[in-house]
């Protein structure tokens, strides 16, 4: 049985006042809002105003699209500069240097082997140890294929993902299975 509201136990002396009405026996204090709580609320409102002004109205903020375009242009410039140093002779030399070929092997086995096989004999992708080069036999041709891919045949463009260093190492690793031109005076495999 629910007693009328007035029959509720009175507030003990020294306790805060209760609201006069009770709901199914539930009473309520009416305490002040904590200051830190109010300040938190006000601070987030101020942040909203400031953020909106800055991002949307002052013209000072750069849009996401423009920002990423600028970033990517810088990345592109660095990569182009790095690529320029990698001529055919350099890549052939790298292919005889285990520092590069071992690193290249690691990249090859995690990324390339799923299509070209760990023995480089091909599968979904082309055979890399036979005598046929589909897209040119020079190291620069290989660099281009790995960097830019052959999208029509399902070879992804790995340049953006792996970067010049890893790509050149992987190319050096592939070249290590092939014979360098005699005039470079490098050891055959």
């Amino acid at each position, binding site marked *: *049985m*629910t007693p*009328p509201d007035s029959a509720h136990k009175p507030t003990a002396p020294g306790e805060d006042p*209760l*609201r006069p*009405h009770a*709901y*199914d*026996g*539930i*009473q*309520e*204090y*009416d*305490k*002040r*809002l*904590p200051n830190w*709580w*109010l300040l*938190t*609320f006000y601070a*987030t*409102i101020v*942040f*909203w*105003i400031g*953020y*909106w002004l800055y*991002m*949307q*109205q002052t013209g000072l903020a750069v*849009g*996401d*699209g423009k*920002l*990423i375009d600028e970033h*990517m242009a810088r*990345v592109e410039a*660095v*990569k182009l500069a790095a690529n320029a140093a990698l001529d055919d002779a350099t890549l052939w030399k790298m292919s005889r240097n285990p520092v590069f070929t071992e690193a290249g092997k690691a990249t090859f086995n*995690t*990324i390339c082997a*799923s*299509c070209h096989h760990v023995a480089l004999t091909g599968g*979904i992708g082309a055979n890399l140890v036979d005598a046929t080069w589909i897209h040119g036999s020079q190291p620069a041709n290989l660099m281009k294929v790995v960097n830019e*891919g052959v*999208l*029509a*045949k*399902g070879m*992804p*463009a790995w340049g*953006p*993902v*792996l*970067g*010049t*260093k*890893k790509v050149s190492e992987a190319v050096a690793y592939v070249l290590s299975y092939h014979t360098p031109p005699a005039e470079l005076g490098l050891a055959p495999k």
Partner: protein
Amino acid sequence: MSDRKITINYNDRIVRQFMLATVLWGVVGMLVGVLVASQLNFWRLNFDLPWLTFGRLRPLHTNAVIFAFVGNMMFAGVYYSTQRLLKARLASDFLSSLHFWGWQAIIVCAAITLPLGFTRGKEYAELIWPINIAVALIWVVFAVNFFWTLAKRNEPSLYVAIWFYIATIITVAMLYIVNHISIPTSLLHSYPVFGGVQDALVQWWYGHNAVAFFLTTPILGIMYYFLPKAAERPVYSYRLSVIHFWSLVFVYIWAGPHHLLNTALPNWLQALGMTFSLMLWAPSWGGMLNGLLTLRGAWHKLRTDPVLKFYAAAVTFYGMATFEGPLLSIKSVNALAHYSDWIIGHVHAGALGWNGFMAAGMIYWLLPKLWNKPLYSTALANLHFWLGTVGILLYVAAMWTSGITQGLMLNATTEGGTVLAYPNFLDTLNTIRPMMLMRVIGGGLYLVGFLLLAYNVIRTISGAQVVDGRVEVYVEELKSSERPLGAFGTFLNPPVVFSALGTVLACVWMFGGPVLQIVGLFGTALCAILAVAHFATRGTRWAGWYERLLVSAAPFTVLTFVAVAAGGLIQIVPTVVVNKAQNMEERIAKPYTPLELAGRDIYIREGCYNCHSQMIRTMVPDVLRYGDYSRLGESLFDHPYQWGSRRTGPDLARVGGKYNAAWHFVHMADPRNTSPGSNMPNYPWLFTKQTDVASLYGKINVMRTLGVPYPPLSAALIAEEVETQAKMLVEELKASQQLTSGDREIVALIAYLQRLGKFEKVVRTTAHAAP
């Protein structure tokens, strides 16, 4: 005083029914959760069976715990407390029963259709259209039953719990209906009317506020009733209730776009999503404070009473999750955390901690009252509490570690920021595997705890006599100061006028032109100052008006609806109006060919979006890994959009042409063929099932109705186009020694995958900039 005494017999049968359903579906939902978590670690647990794969079971898990577990818990709590707070029996026993059995039938339908692959392909909105209609109808039954009871109440004044219930009922109805508007192509399939960015925005307006108004507001209402009851203490602060209720329901609605930060979503929406999420922090903590501080003077009871233990922990987890939410909404934090396990951890702090523990506390408290028998074992309930708490902490800590680790690895670059440090996605996946295992253990512990609850329930109620509540109440005559507000009094009063004026002026500031911006900003400030001054001098009038609002159920409901509708209208209407094909800059999607469309429907059926996004964000690591960032126009014709929310696997927005057809063929048969260490399931049935070509005619017609620029195509022409494209793919596969026939689903799926990321450049004949 001419009080009259009446006797009320509460309908507690319906409460018992919903409570037992809560326990049953809780067990089912959590069991599926542990299974899908295990599948992420051990791909063999997908069993190569279509209906047991992760992509189909994950929606079953989310729908079961949200709508079946929390849904039934909410209905039990709402029905128990509402009757007592309003001093009235539920209006209609028939509607109550219809509500119960209708809801259970919906759950059973969902549990059958989702594993079979019938889905709308939108998170937490997967159920197919006939079930959508059933959900809407049963929700209306709930609403009628509730508001009818409200009309018949013997307690004129509405307690804060009732405010939250009102907000829940009207807002969920609004969200659910708008996000489920679809055009059927058959009895089991439909396309949503919104596409691309519109669909994304509507989806997260719904998805975020499903969390707000399905998992939060009703449970806050339940907290306001059951927590002071169990603690036998007064609620801490009435004025805090008022402030946090109105700020919560108003601000919550705006925060949806924080699920789409750094994506192709227009910047102004992202800015709204982030700033309003931050403003949501204090209103959410208002609820936590009122819960925790109500326990003052009752803390000693926590040692002995499992009910209070559960409530105290639940409210604490609520506070934790609602601090984490705004944190994750900061754009730079989100760049790390989005698509990662951190989000999964965040949701589970809320779902396991807040919802699960509130449910447990409520059930343990109600059991003895509804069955007139003491709880079978308090010790088991305490054990449940500790198992659950340890389980949540393990789960959440594992997901934080996992999410931050993988996020850092995916975003890490070397060589002066030009190259990804971890180019192989699988490296990042296999790094977090131990954390994924810890999640299974944490979730498993939580499930064991919940099974203890189920056992406790069974032992308590077996052989017990059910008992229905019955009270005698004195119905008082209304005092003249307590007459309900009319239309005039509802709107023309200081609080409403100042709030409405402030909101309008703030919108003028945010969205107006250069002059209006300044007018709006100063106008908003002036309005705020005037409101403060008015409140300082005539605060009693504000308080007096609110007292009268509390006895005015209809005006209260109308004002709540206005508060929750505002944010959605301001975000969605411009997005729907502006983002049309003729306004797209740079790039625009081409409609999918019939075969690609068939493949896309297979992609959706298998729930690929549960693990793969199709949205490359405006971030360097995303662009380095997946290609140029996604533009709005590229997904414009996607009904439903497939931007995704979690990258268990890599993004697929530009996967088309990245590999050749043979790669996909071999990969779908067993992903470990091409991707050693992958946790993706095998899809052997795609190699035997035939593509459903017959339905394409109807589907393309619906697409055309939705504004996708398909030329007129007859059924015969469609079949011909399908055959031609399939034949080309089969030849291409044959060249790589992969043999199949063109009518297989795998061919359609590969056609779709190879198409992803293809677009047309927009060439404008007349200058026509988007506003």
